[in-house]
Structures are given as C-alpha cells and as structure tokens.
C-alpha cells in the first residue's frame, strides 16, 4: 500500500513552520533548522527505520531561505516529493534541487507582493482609520491585528496545500499564467494613489527662510506710525504658492532617489534627514532671516 501523509500531519507540519520558521535564523543555514523541524512529523510518518529518518532529517536541515508566509508553498512541495520518495519515486537529490530552486522565486514574490505591498497597504488603511476617527483611534490597530494574522494564516495554509497537491510543475504553471501580475498592477495603483495622499498629508518640511526688516507701520488704533518687524521674503510661502507642499514632495523624492538609485541604507537616509532637520532648525533661529527669530 502506498504511503501517504495524513491530513493531521500536514496541519501539524504547517503549524510548526508557520509559528516557528524564524526562531533560529542565522547566516549558516538561514531557516534550515526550522525547515527540518517542520518536516520532522512528516518524516516520522513516512519512514520507520532510524537510518531512513536520519537521512531524511539531514537533507532538510541544510541551507534554506524564503519569505516564510508565501514560501509555505516550498514546504508543501517538499512534503509531496518526500511522500513520493517514500514510495520509491524520485531521488533525494531532486528534493534538494527543488528546494534550492524555490528559494529565489518564493523570496521574490513573498517580499514584493506580501511584505512590500500587502502589509504596507493594510497598514495604510488601518492608520487612515486611526487618523480619521479621532475619538476611537484604537480601531486601526485592532482591525490590523485581526485581519492581517488571520488572513495570512489562511492564505499561507492554502498555499502550503496547493504546493503539496500541485507539486513543483503545477506551481510553476500557475506562476506562468500572468494572473498574479494583473492583481499586482491593480494593487500597485491603489498603493500609489494612497502613498501620494499620505505624502501630502503627513510629510512636513519647511526651509524656514523668512527675511525680515523693520519698517514704519501705520497703526489704525492710535493713528500713529510705529516701528514693526515685517516679512520681506518668505521662501516657504513663495514656494507653496507655486506648488503647494513642494518642499515635502522634494524631500520624499530625494529619499526615493537615494534609496533606489544610490543604494543608500534606510539608516543612512535617516541620518541625512536628521542633519537636514538640524540645518533648517538653525536657519530658523538666525536673527533677521529665520522664521523663528
């Protein structure tokens, strides 16, 4: 009789992966130990002798990495292949090759679709709610805490089962249909519009240059001329008349340029923002030409 992995073991293996995939992350095998742990119930069910179990465990604690939420497809595929191997189909080497081949694409899809698009989008919607509902700002985080983990668990489990059932070829065929790209494009457009709105709402920056002079001003109440400080040239007002919030927009585009074209690290950009903040604050305090003076 052919050996199969029971539904209970599948769920057990998935849960061990879903909750503990990052527990022992390190440079040598990345998520290798966690992958080995999630395979252990499967291996116990498929193989009876100590030697077979040891051989199977050893091939699953080697180097492995992925974006673990979308990457559960790799676990599904590996379980499917391990099941076939226990029934005499395939080779241990082909399992290794499949795992290594999946590292790149699943990391790329997981990082770009899930981590860099879905998570920020869901956070954006939640923080917009918190921002709008000033009397009940807790609604945003509570919504995110319910929707994100629950939705991801269900999706990750579905992807895991798809990997197990469809196998390597089935998954590759789906990725080739292009349906994913159309969804990505629509989500990207939503993201862009919202990010545009958030930039205009939340990024604040001013150059604080406000040249002043002392002049005689007619005071209507007392009908006399008195000395008063008036603004001659306010750079921020001038720029905002040309295009509202152009300085915050320019700062955002500078961050974009440094990050994506010059490969600056976020922490370095943060340092630069700190330096710029110090500079405009100092300008603001210079007597005669600063906005705060």
């Amino acid at each position, binding site marked *: 009789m052919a050996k199969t992995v029971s539904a209970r073991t599948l769920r057990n293996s998935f849960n061990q992966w879903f909750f503990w995939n990052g527990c022992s992350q*390190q440079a040598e095998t990345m998520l290798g130990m966690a992958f080995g742990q999630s395979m252990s119930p499967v291996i116990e069910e498929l193989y009876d002798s100590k030697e077979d179990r040891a051989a199977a465990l050893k091939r699953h604690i080697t180097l492995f990495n992925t974006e673990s939420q979308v990457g559960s497809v790799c676990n599904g595929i590996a379980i499917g292949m391990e099941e076939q191997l226990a029934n005499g189909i395939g080779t241990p080497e082909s399992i290794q090759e499949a795992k290594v081949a999946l590292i790149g694409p699943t990391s790329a899809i997981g990082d770009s679709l899930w981590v860099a698009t879905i998570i920020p989008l869901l956070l954006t919607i939640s923080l917009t709610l918190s921002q709008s509902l000033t009397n009940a700002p807790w609604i945003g985080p509570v919504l995110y805490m319910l929707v994100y983990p629950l939705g991801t668990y269900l999706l990750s489990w579905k992807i895991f089962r798809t990997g197990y059932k469809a196998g390597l070829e089935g998954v590759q065929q789906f990725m080739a249909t292009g349906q994913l790209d159309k969804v990505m494009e629509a989500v990207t*457009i939503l993201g862009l519009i919202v990010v545009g709105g958030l930039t205009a709402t939340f990024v604040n920056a001013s150059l604080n240059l406000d040249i002043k002079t002392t002049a005689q001003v007619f005071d209507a109440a007392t009908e006399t001329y008195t000395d008063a400080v008036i603004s001659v040239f306010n750079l921020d007002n001038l720029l905002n008349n040309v295009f509202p919030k152009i300085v915050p927009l320019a*700062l955002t585009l500078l961050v974009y340029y440094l990050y994506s074209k010059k490969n600056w690290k976020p922490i370095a950009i943060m340092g630069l923002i700190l330096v710029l903040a110090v500079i405009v604050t100092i300008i603001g305090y210079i007597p005669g030409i600063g906005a705060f003076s």
Partner: protein
Amino acid sequence: MSVLQMILIALFIYLGAIGSIVGNTIGWYCLGRPLVASFIVGLIMGDVQTAMLVGVPLQIAYLANVTPGGAVAWDLSYATYIGTATALALKGTVASTPALIGLAFTGAGLGGVVGGTMWGIHYSLDVFLNRWAERLAEQGETRKMWMPNVLGGQAIGFLARFVPALAILAAINAAGSSSGLNIPGWFITGISTFGSMMAALGMGIILSFLVKKNIHWAIFLAGFVLVTYFGLNTMAVAVVGIIVAFIVYAADNRQEAF
C-alpha cells in the same frame, strides 16, 4: 512607569521581534508594526489616545521597513515600543503634539540602534545551534527536532531582547520622573522638525517598491494633488484609489465591466 509596566513592554519588544516564539506573522509583521506597538504601549500605560498620536507618524515613517534576506539593520520592534514609551513617559515636559512626536522619534532612534545590535548578536549565536540540530538528525530523532530551533533559538532571542529593553525603559523612566528635567525650546523645535520630516523616509522607500514604470509617477502625483488642491482627507483618497484600481483591473482583463 511601574516595574510591571516596564516588564510588560519589554516582553512585547521580544514578542514583536523577528523570529519570536509567536511566529513572524503575529510577531514581527503584527506586534512589531508601529501602529500596533504604540496601541499596546498605550494600553499598558493607560493612555491609548496619546499613544496613537505618536503611533500614526511612526507607522508612516517606518511603513517601508521590510527585511529582504533577513538583513535587519533597523529593529522596528525595539524602535517603536521604546519610542512610544519615551513619548508617554516624558509627555509632561513638552506642550505640543509635534514635540511629542519628536520625542517618540528620538526614543525610536535610540531603541532601533540597540535593537539592531541585539539582532546581530542573536543572529551570530544561533549558528552554534546547527551542530545540535545535526546531532539530532544523525540520530533520527524526529520528535526532538524542535529543540535547537525553538528552545535554543528562543533562549538566545529572549535574553538578547528582553534584558536590554528593560534597562533602556528603566533609564527613560528615571529621566521622566526626575523633577529637574527641563528640555530647552530649541531642542524641542529641532526634534519636532525631525519628526515631521521623517514621514518622507517611509514614503520615499515605499515609492521605490511601487514605481515600476513612468506612468506610475503620474498616479502618485494624482494622489498628492487630491490632498493639496482638492483638500481630500486620506480616507477619501483611499476610496478614490480603490475605485481606480478596480477599473484598471477590469480593463486589464478586457472585461465589459462598464
């Protein structure tokens, strides 16, 4: 902050870190996000309203904080729990909301650097666990494979996160309760300016994920002017965005949808 409050916040700093016991979906990607972190600090310290005032700007500034290939230079969980706790502990010393946000970013800067260092220690020490896992695999011990991963990894992870976090929180608490603390006005102006400029960090980096062709710049600018010229709030912009996204998706599929 009472000792219990400090312990609870330090515990959540550990839980919200990458690779904690509750898994990255519940930990790093949920408890570790600034929006959720500030809410939890607010609950612990009994001031959700103020916590969310700093939580929203922190979330925007760190919206793009992702970890491709596990490279954590900036530890978001450490940064935002410490940042919100700093703002709440020192809120008596400042008057305005921008100043409060500035305090939160200052605390987040400190917390993030410590957290990044702690992550480095965790990541390096975990390498030794591989020898343990190899020995268990050699024996075919399927039922013990969780030990190096969960037990070993988490013992290191917990110590590297909980203990330093507690020390930082105690220091912030001491600063907040010392009556002589008088923050000068120019410093408040400086950190307020920094806080309001930091939103550009999140927006600029998220743009580099989203923009793939030139037309995308026009769409981004459309969202921008909906606020500056048309005065829409962010919720209204999101609704417009959803409508446009649906239209684009339908057009992409060449459906007779409209």
